[in-house]
């Protein structure tokens, strides 16, 4: 007996290429910012304030995307802003993912009192208003890169824990788990070998979504001036500054905004694309 399902193969989609490409570009920009930036991102020159981007009239050579009201180069600031954004996305996303996924997996598979403790903790945690919570947290421990990361982890682990718990519960009820247990696999073994691989596609999607969310949270905190020191350029800080002069110099607002938008979009699309690659049923 045989059938022909084995031959079907899915192509790597365009969106996976586009999103991975954009994120690679940003990662390179973040790593190489000091060397590839055309100008010093902090250098002010009031004579060169509000220069338009390169295709408009009245530009200066070297200021490709124009300057802000203090004469700082927008492109250089975006490149340097990528450092903060990417650090926050990768570090905060990963830590959040690990904490949330481990707790969710334990709660969903072991059930019993473990589940009761973790689930109640999630319920209580989610009752705090997240933005106020993070502002309060940063007000207490002081602004800085690690404060942002901590704030994101503290707020968002519940997102992972909830979804992974539900997934693990569903998988735990499947017949293959019973079969594995009859075949002598212990509880931890079942959880890691049988359940985890089936929850992994979901975890990957959540992880990349979380990275996008981390970028947004960082921008929001910059916007309300609670991010890292105001000297370091961040996308959120640029958007906040650009907002005040949007009628005279729209580019100061629009370029960081587009970068932010594309980055968050790329993270979520990367997740969807990777899920298709990792999921044996869709592969």
């Amino acid at each position: 007996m045989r059938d022909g399902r084995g031959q079907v193969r899915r192509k790597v989609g365009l969106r996976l290429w586009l999103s991975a490409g954009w994120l690679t570009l940003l990662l390179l920009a973040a790593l190489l910012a000091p060397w590839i930036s055309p100008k010093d991102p902090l250098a002010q020159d009031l004579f060169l304030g509000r220069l338009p981007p390169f295709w408009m009239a009245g530009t200066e050579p070297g200021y490709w995307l124009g300057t802000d009201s203090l004469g700082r180069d927008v492109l250089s600031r975006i490149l340097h802003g990528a450092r903060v954004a990417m650090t926050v996305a990768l570090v905060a996303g990963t830590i959040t993912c690990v904490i949330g996924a481990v707790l969710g997996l334990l709660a969903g598979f072991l059930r019993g009192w473990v589940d009761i403790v973790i689930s109640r903790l999630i319920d209580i945690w989610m009752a705090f208003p997240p933005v106020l919570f993070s502002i309060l947290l940063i007000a207490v421990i002081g602004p800085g890169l690690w404060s942002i990361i901590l704030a994101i982890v503290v707020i968002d682990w519940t997102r992972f824990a909830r979804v992974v718990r539900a997934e693990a519960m569903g998988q735990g009820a499947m017949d293959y788990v019973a079969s594995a247990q009859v075949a002598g696999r212990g509880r931890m073994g079942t959880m890691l070998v049988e359940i985890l691989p089936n929850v992994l596609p979901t975890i990957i999607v959540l992880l990349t979504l979380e990275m996008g969310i981390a970028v947004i949270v960082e921008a929001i905190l910059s916007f309300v001036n609670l991010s890292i020191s105001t000297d370091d350029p961040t996308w959120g800080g640029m958007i906040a500054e650009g907002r005040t002069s949007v009628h005279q110099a729209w580019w100061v607002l629009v370029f960081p905004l587009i970068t932010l938008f594309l980055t968050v979009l790329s993270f979520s699309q990367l997740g969807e694309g990777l899920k298709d690659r990792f999921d044996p049923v869709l592969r």
Partner: protein
Amino acid sequence: MSFLEVRNLSARVRGAPDRLLRDVSLSVAPGEVRGLVGESGAGKSMIGKAVLGILPRAVEVLCGEILLGGTDLLRLPPAERRRRIGATCALIPQDPLTALNPSRRIGPQMTDRLVDILGWTRAKADACARDLLAEVQIADPDRVLRQYPHELSGGMRQRVLIASAFAAEPKLIVADEPTTALDVTVQKEVLRLIAGMQARHGTALLFVTHDLGVVSKVCQSLSVLYAGMVVEDTTVRDFFRAPAHPYARALLAATPKYTDPDRSLVPVAQDVLDGVQAQVDAADRGWRNG
């Protein structure tokens, strides 16, 4: 001497007043095929799960013994129980679509038990899996071993499950409604396959089903359950000739016959149900009074 002997097993959902299994006793001799029949909710699958140590967490065993090769499983520490069950028993699950882990290849899933519990080498376990797949008439065993479950049809998956249940000659296989999720043509084929494998390997089989037709084809003895109580324990020959219990008689009379397709369906008569329910109530009264 029976290989599996269940004695006076009672179980209930934690906190529930009524029992799910009511003093169930049954035995399976080496090489015997015992059918376990009853309507849905009668506790057929629960007995199979109790034997294999995979009862849902919400169900607790109240009393009784499950003797496997003479040792009471319920008295063993969990790790030892798991090892003992894994070394001598296997399961053919009901739904082939969820009984294989979707993210693992067929090969490792079939050989886990051989390597982890019995301590075989990978190569020996792989060779065994290949032979078994060939035995259940899968055309290209090597390819199937490398495939994922979703790449196989339902019938193929059920073959894989049957093959892996017979790996390393278990003493007892619990088949939990192995044909219920399949369509009728595949059902017949799978049934023939199980019966053939059982005959060749001489494995004892506890065959959970609600289909008396299936019982008549593969089983030698059977236990009829009603509300978690064994109401009839007899050989298949005696059962089809003259069932002793009124409920068993009514059940047999209710089975549709393909020789008489125009006959309308006969439900089990109300007085029979009342009678067997009274028997259950009496058992429960006796239980409550000590």
